[in-house]
């Protein structure tokens, strides 16, 4: 027979511990006793129930069927009055005895109600209108009573009191919060933070009185007011007491267990000197500490479950570092560790902006974070909590602990990152997974990225992935020779590759593989990059092998998640006409286009087009391609410039159209997004484009390059200031050509410009320091001349079945038609 496990207490700690035991396959015959006549609910959510944002059913963690499904005998509403440690039985108030082999005490705590005269009525419990705030029943009766009354006083300005005050606003017109100490939440916050929180709470319409000792509850039959020690009387008809909690230890104490503020336990959560009695949650006192928050309770439940099920008999609880992030009465508050420095050589940083209700303080000791408080702005809380919890090294610029300054985020060192920390947020890859892959023998960065897919989403985590690989390989990271190659399948950096292509007159992708790869092996992942490079180098003389193209370039549209495509007609400079709009509307209707969407590049996107419909749509549109699918020149975003705008100092619209006219469809190593804006107000977002042009007063134009506003945000560097639109057009072409010739495959300008340095690029492009400007201009001119609108390729397919569906049995589009 399975050993009998009895749990006294059916709150969050008791039920969680049982869940942990079950999840470890623990084989026990479990009986649970609960004081309240319900299944287990989330006590933390009671303030939401009071505030009316959650209904009761939403806060249950385990309803009664969970107990039945797991073979647990639940005695809800039956209180245990005594434990016989020697006979190993527990006795309920109704006299029934239940034997146990192992016993868990999880009786939690109760509201502490200070002995204020008038708070109780002899023989009848609380005075009419007085409530504690601890249980679902408390909450229910408080709501019922408050609804029919007007003014509430909450005694206690801690977390619970603040939540009660906020919740009561939902039911009564006036709420006053009385706090006996000098500032709100005095256990977690220092005086300054407490004052700022108070202002924020007062803005919500809650009256706050600090240093308010309540000396009497007034009213004969029902509450009419409270009296303070200074003699003030505050009229009210509801009083809620939220003055703290006390551990429920009476049963344990009466049964002979060692009790101080809580029931004293060792590191296995075992009651002192009791081999078979364990204690978890708020009623436990571990190494002198009792906890009133939920996180330590989860830690304790895990340790106890590990120990009891034998999963890890030596599992030990070492106490919890308390770090909390809460929304207190609508205000974000986070606190961890010390609230005030208590040593002279501590570093303390404080930022306070009372007008906005923001307060931040950080305490550093010996280079480690030992305390932090945030009120009103908790953006940095994740980093601070991690730094606090794991003792991470802190940024040299301490101010970064409080604010995200511009520029790349402070890098977390690979070694100090937790194993379960998610490194790649696109593909959900943790540090642990990356490390495992390295330990499994894959010691190159690109190899690890291929295996785990880390860094293969937006790419912003690549450098962190590289650091982790390096760390996990313990310095034995293998230099990935491919990292310097233009594409992974041809063993050459770009300059050598281009030289070899010219030397051997290689004009097709297959000939490059055949000639330049030992063994002549082709590589699917290299084809697209080679096709782009060869097209750029040879223009008209490039031998186009369609299989070297990515699907988007085969069908001149951008593939979508369901295998349909998006169609974006060219709309130069974002300027359109009624006739053009009418035609687009007619096409969209005729083909039942599921979604018509404005793009960020000032064009119109027709989404959800099946592949076989593409030629018909192009024919009906009879507009050129907008190239919203290629690694190519995309669009030039413009503002209305000087024609209409009363601030515009240059004709940005005309220049944008001219640029797009000239450089439309030019392929490159990555996308090229441009903008021209008519004044430094920058409505066309020119500062964050691959190339952005800004008109400035005096008829001049600034060119910014290497900007980005995608996963990576970067303001472009000023390349040059020129006098005329013609110069803008020439420099743009030369800059783009230099990028096309020297950037690695898929390297956007925001990476390429800083890699080469803006000074170097300016020297080459503007000052012609290397004497190649004329060549760059000529090469670009050749590419421009070779431009053909791909959407003309529609009467005859370029290859057999070019527009045949690849999912013949799936009805496309799969998105709903709007």
């Amino acid at each position, binding site marked *: 027979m399975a050993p009998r496990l009895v749990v006294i207490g059916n709150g969050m700690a008791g039920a969680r511990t049982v869940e942990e035991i079950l999840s470890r396959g623990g084989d026990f015959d479990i009986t649970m006793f609960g004081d309240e006549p319900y299944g287990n609910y989330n006590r933390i959510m009671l303030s939401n129930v009071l505030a009316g944002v959650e209904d009761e059913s939403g806060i249950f963690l385990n309803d009664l069927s969970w107990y039945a499904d797991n073979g647990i005998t639940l005695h809800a509403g039956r209180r245990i009055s005594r434990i016989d440690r020697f006979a190993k039985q527990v006795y309920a108030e109704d006299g029934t005895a239940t034997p146990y082999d192992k016993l868990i005490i999880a009786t939690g705590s109760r509201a502490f109600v200070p002995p204020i005269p008038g708070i109780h009525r002899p023989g009848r419990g609380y005075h009419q209108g007085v409530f504690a705030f601890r249980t679902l029943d408390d909450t229910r009766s408080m709501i019922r009573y408050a609804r029919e009354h007007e003014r509430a006083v909450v005694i206690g300005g801690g977390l619970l009191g603040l939540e009660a005050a906020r919740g009561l606003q939902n039911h009564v017109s006036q709420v006053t919060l009385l706090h006996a100490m000098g500032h709100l939440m005095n256990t977690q916050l220092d005086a300054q933070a407490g004052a700022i929180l108070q202002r924020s709470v007062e803005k919500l319409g809650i009256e706050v009185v600090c240093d308010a000792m309540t000396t009497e509850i007034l009213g004969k039959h029902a509450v009419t007011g409270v009296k303070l020690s200074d003699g003030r009387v505050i009229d009210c008809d509801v009083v809620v007491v939220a003055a703290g909690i006390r551990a429920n230890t009476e049963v344990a104490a009466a049964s002979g267990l060692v009790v101080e503020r809580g029931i004293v336990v060792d590191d296995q959560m075992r009651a002192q000197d009791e081999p078979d009695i364990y204690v978890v949650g708020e009623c436990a006192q571990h190494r002198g500490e009792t906890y009133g928050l939920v996180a330590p309770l989860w830690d304790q439940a895990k340790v106890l479950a590990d120990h009891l099920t034998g999963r890890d008999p030596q599992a030990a609880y070492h106490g919890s570092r308390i770090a909390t992030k809460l929304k207190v009465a609508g205000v974000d508050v986070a606190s961890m560790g010390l609230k005030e420095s208590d040593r002279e050589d501590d570093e303390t940083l404080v930022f306070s902006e009372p007008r906005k209700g923001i307060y931040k303080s950080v305490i550093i000791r010996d280079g480690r974070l030992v305390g932090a408080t945030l009120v009103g702005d908790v953006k940095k809380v994740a980093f601070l909590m991690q730094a606090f919890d794991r003792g991470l090294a802190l940024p040299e610029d301490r101010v970064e602990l409080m604010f995200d300054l511009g520029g790349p985020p402070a890098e977390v060192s690979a070694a100090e990152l937790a194993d379960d920390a998610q490194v790649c947020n696109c593909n959900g890859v943790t540090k642990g997974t990356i490390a495992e892959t390295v330990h499994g023998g894959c010691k190159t960065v690109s190899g690890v990225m*291929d*295996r*785990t*897919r880390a860094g*293969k989403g937006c790419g912003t985590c690549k450098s962190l992935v590289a650091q982790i690989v390096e760390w996990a390989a313990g310095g034995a990271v293998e230099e990935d020779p491919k990292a310097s190659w233009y594409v992974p*399948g041809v063993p050459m950096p770009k300059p050598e590759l281009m030289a070899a292509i010219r030397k051997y007159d290689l004009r097709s992708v*297959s000939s490059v593989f055949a000639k330049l790869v030992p063994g002549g*092996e*082709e*590589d*699917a*992942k290299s*084809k*697209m990059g080679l096709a782009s490079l060869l097209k750029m180098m040879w223009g008209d003389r490039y031998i186009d*092998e*369609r*299989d*070297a193209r*990515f*699907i988007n370039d*085969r069908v001149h549209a951008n*593939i979508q*998640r*369901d*295998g349909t495509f998006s169609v974006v007609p060219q709309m130069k400079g974002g300027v359109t006409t009624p006739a053009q709009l009418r035609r687009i509307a007619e096409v969209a209707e005729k083909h039942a286009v599921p979604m018509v969407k404005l793009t960020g590049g000032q064009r119109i996107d027709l989404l959800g087009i099946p*592949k076989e419909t593409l030629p018909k749509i192009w024919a009906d549109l009879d507009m050129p391609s907008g190239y919203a699918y290629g690694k190519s020149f995309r669009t030039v975003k413009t503002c209305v410039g000087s024609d209409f705008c009363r601030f515009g100092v240059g004709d940005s619209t005309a220049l944008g159209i001219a640029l797009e006219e000239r450089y439309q469809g030019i392929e490159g190593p990555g996308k090229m997004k441009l903008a021209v804006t008519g004044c430094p107000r920058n409505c066309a977002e020119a500062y964050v484009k691959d190339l952005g042009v800004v008109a400035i007063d005096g008829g001049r134009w600034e060119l910014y390059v290497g900007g980005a506003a995608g996963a990576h945000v970067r303001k472009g560097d000023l390349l040059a200031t020129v006098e005329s639109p013609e110069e803008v057009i020439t420099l743009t072409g030369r800059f783009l050509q230099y990028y096309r010739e020297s950037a690695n495959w898929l390297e956007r300008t925001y990476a390429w410009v800083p890699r080469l340095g803006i000074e170097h690029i300016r020297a080459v492009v503007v000052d012609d320091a290397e004497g190649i400007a004329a060549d760059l201009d000529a090469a670009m001119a050749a590419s421009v001349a070779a431009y053909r609108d791909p959407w003309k390729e529609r009467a005859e397919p370029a*290859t*057999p*079945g070019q527009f*045949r*569906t*690849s*999912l*013949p*049995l*799936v009805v496309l589009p799969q998105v709903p038609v709007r």
Partner: protein
Amino acid sequence: MRILGPVTDIPLGEGRTYEVDGEMVAVFRLRDGSVRALSAVCPHRGGPLADGQIDNKVLVCPLHLMAFDITTGCSLSGISDLTVYPVTVDADGHLVISSLTASEVPS
């Protein structure tokens, strides 16, 4: 045995999807002249594999670049494998697929 059509319906180095017995089969014509047939839908997010890029060993899905061994169907990206179907080119240059029961992985 079923004839899908002339092998020249598939451009060199590309794939096309065929419907065979209610299944979607992506057939690829490799640049070495041989052909392969695999299930047409990527097990990752349903991508149309015939729209992917190939070489003589690997097939890459166009949606999220999941890679598969084009001969065995085995995933090279740690997801489910593809089903491989036996396909040949007959003397008349027609693609012939023998049946839709998954074949043994060729050694």
